[in-house]
């Protein structure tokens, strides 16, 4: 490995530098940290003998693929949000995923109609409520704008992709005008300026800064089962699965795209199909506490403890079309200021 850099650097202009494109490899760009992806990657390699090269980052991967252009080594991009999937489509770095396996196992609601992406697991955007101070056990997203929560809600930046997904779903459900009114209501209920991440939101609820926090399902489970320092944050709160009035809970996707210029296309397809398989679904759900996307895979007990997930039937692709509107609304109502 080290030799490779030395060589590559010394021979800046030389030909024939090593490239991770030999057969039997596949290059994975991922928004999931390398550490969390590692168990999946190892299992895949063990089963197929195909080596997986990984680069992980918290932003900009689709842009990187686009900039790398025709010679990009990227085969598969793994995202943890519908927004990034949509970004990849907009950056024109995708090609259709043609697979009977995928079509059969992944519900159409969680796939792009044009095949540009497919979901591989689900996470829901839910409420972390204070055990002491919140008596209610059911709540609707609409209700978050109710003045009874004035000064009681914590949330991360309104421009963060997770919130962007939720707000775009609201726009899809109720239209822009209603969504704007709702956002103003939610903003009026905030206990503090949006900041931090979903963990900090749970922590702020635990510390008494607010009664309700908005966060993803898996953060709570990670805090509960992972770092003992953070366990008290989860223990002070309960997870409520909110629903849209007359609908279900907003779910987001962890999904994949097949890169437009994928040099190892065949291996990439193998990886994508494998990710939709039972073993991967189980690993994914147990290492990161997500909802399996295919039927018949057991839900991790911590996640199952939240209650039965009644996912809203709205197609994810439809939500994606309202992302820009949601982002503009956030700026317009000054949600983050």
């Amino acid at each position: 490995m080290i030799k490779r850099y030395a060589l590559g650097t010394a021979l800046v202009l030389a030909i024939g530098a090593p490239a991770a494109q030999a057969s039997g490899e596949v290059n994975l760009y991922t928004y999931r940290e390398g550490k969390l992806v590692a168990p999946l990657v190892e299992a895949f390699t063990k089963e197929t003998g195909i080596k997986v090269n990984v680069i992980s980052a918290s932003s900009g991967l689709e842009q990187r693929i686009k900039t790398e252009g025709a010679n990009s080594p990227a085969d598969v991009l793994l995202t943890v949000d519908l927004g990034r999937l949509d970004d990849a489509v907009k950056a024109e770095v995708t090609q259709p995923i043609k697979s009977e396996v995928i079509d059969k196992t992944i519900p159409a609601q969680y796939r792009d109609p044009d095949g540009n992406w497919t979901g591989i697991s689900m996470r829901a955007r839910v409420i972390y409520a204070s055990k002491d101070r919140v008596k209610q056990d059911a709540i609707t997203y609409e209700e978050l704008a109710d003045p009874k929560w004035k000064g009681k809600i914590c949330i991360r930046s309104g421009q963060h992709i997770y919130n962007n997904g939720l707000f775009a779903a609201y726009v899809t459900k109720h239209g822009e005008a209603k969504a704007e009114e709702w956002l103003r209501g939610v903003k009026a209920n905030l206990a503090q300026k949006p900041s931090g991440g979903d963990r900090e939101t749970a922590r702020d609820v635990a510390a008494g800064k607010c009664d309700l926090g908005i966060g993803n399902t898996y953060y709570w489970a990670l805090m509960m089962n992972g770092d003992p320092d953070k366990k008290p944050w989860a223990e002070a709160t309960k997870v409520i699965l909110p629903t849209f009035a007359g609908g279900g809970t907003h779910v987001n996707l962890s999904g994949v795209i097949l890169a437009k210029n994928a040099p190892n296309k065949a291996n990439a397809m193998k990886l994508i199909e494998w990710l939709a398989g039972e073993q991967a679904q189980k690993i994914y759900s147990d290492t990161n506490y997500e909802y399996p996307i295919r039927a018949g895979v057991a839900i991790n007990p911590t996640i199952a403890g939240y209650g039965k997930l009644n996912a809203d039937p709205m197609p994810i692709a439809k939500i994606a079309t309202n992302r820009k509107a949601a982002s503009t609304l956030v700026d317009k109502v000054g949600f983050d200021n």
Partner: protein
Amino acid sequence: MTRTVPEIIAIFLAALTALVVAAPVISIAVLALQPEAELWQHLLAYVLPQALRDTAALLIGVGIVALGIGAGTAWLISSHDFPGRALLLWLLPLPLAIPTYLAAYVYVDLFEPLGLVHRTLATLMPMPDAIKLLPAMRSLPGAIFVIGLVLYPYVYLSARAMFQHRSADFAEAAKVLGAGRWTTFRRISLPMARPALAVGLALVALETLNDIGASEYLGVRTLTVSVFTTWLNRGSLAGAAQLSLFMLAIVTVLIAIERFGRRESSYEFSAENPRLMARTQLHGWRGALALTACLLPALLGFAVPLLYLLHQSIRRGLLTTETTVWRDAGHTIMLAAIATGVALLLGLIVVIAQRWRASRLTDASFAIAQTGYALPGLVLALGLLTPVLFIDNSLNALARWIGATPPGLVMVGSGAAVVIAYVIRFLAVPTGFIKAGFERIPVDYDDSARAAGAPVMTSLRVIQLPLLRPALLGAVIVVFVDCLKELPATLLLRPLNVETLATSIYQYASRGSFEEGALAALLIVAASIGPVMWLARFADVPKGPV
């Protein structure tokens, strides 16, 4: 006069180096030419006003903090004697070993609700009351506090050199004339130190502008953060380039200030045996006060982050469980070592070319080679992408044309792009050090060697390089440590399967569990301590012949 082959090669390489250093700026300028009307409407309405306000407030705030602490402690320690002074002499510069982003992560962890400070306070009072006392770290004041605390040594070091050596005669004259300590400081020492303070402040401002990890994490939406989000979240390279150009304009102003300051202080380096100012002895509460005033910034800027990282690494048993950190450390050292070697070599060539043949071309090459430091890492990385990918794509086209297998992205894929970014960004260090080193070697030596018939390469090898050793060593230390810490360019340009210590810490922090990256952070700090102490000593020794 005819030119010898080594001379011609040196001149050519120097010019080539200058061209490479200039490439990112040229490429940014070209990228910025693309129209982005819709984006600018959005940027003007929602992004730029905020970014300008935040950037200005951050620069001014950090400047005030760094100036207050840096000049204050430098003055205390240069003109006074008090208990603990010897310890402080080496403690005060050490915050430079803490990268800004690390300081931000540590202070957020310490001051978060239910964090260490909150829990400690809560042993004295109820939790909800204690929470009201916690300062909000994720805010502009938080960022000013954190960044100012670790960058003040730039001001301290330059001010100290000034206070220590320059004002002895004046200060004593003032004393004879009956001026008090405070009056002497205000009317004599401070005005005399002004150029040095300007130099230190400009460096603080450049580092602040370069920072992305701390500002982003603390929720301060500066121009640097805006460049990042414009490219990565809005998908507009052209827009990011336009913002970058705007940033470069600010940087140019800062550099002009620094140059101006340095010009005024040029006599600083002329005297060979400066007389040191007699120090006033401080006793009792005055001594205690001086000690506290100097100890506090060193503790907050260095000891607290260091101890926190140490504590987390031990408590979490990271030494045994954190296995990837050693691989990341290997990548980091490898990239930094190669970059240091290349930078040293190119620095040497640029300076030698100018010494051998001072001409408009070699002078310009030297000047351009020093501009890289002014490029924020992120802007540099953005600017490098186009030329680097151009080479990569040309290689692939060439391979296809001759019927060979296209090699893929060689420059990006091998880490060469990261190395080039480091070299461009830090080349100013070896050129500066080597130039200063050469200035202490009389030109007579060159002439004598030449008169004796020695080829230029021989006199370089036998006479000059040995004399240059201290300067070369200094350059190596500084560049190496700067490379270890570099974040923004590494983040954008690193190849598959590669994390450096800095990027892995960044990733831990972005998913909200920075403590798990404590060991990696500790390694960066530990590696930087020695060099910072060496630098401080270097700055401390009265300037004279080596």
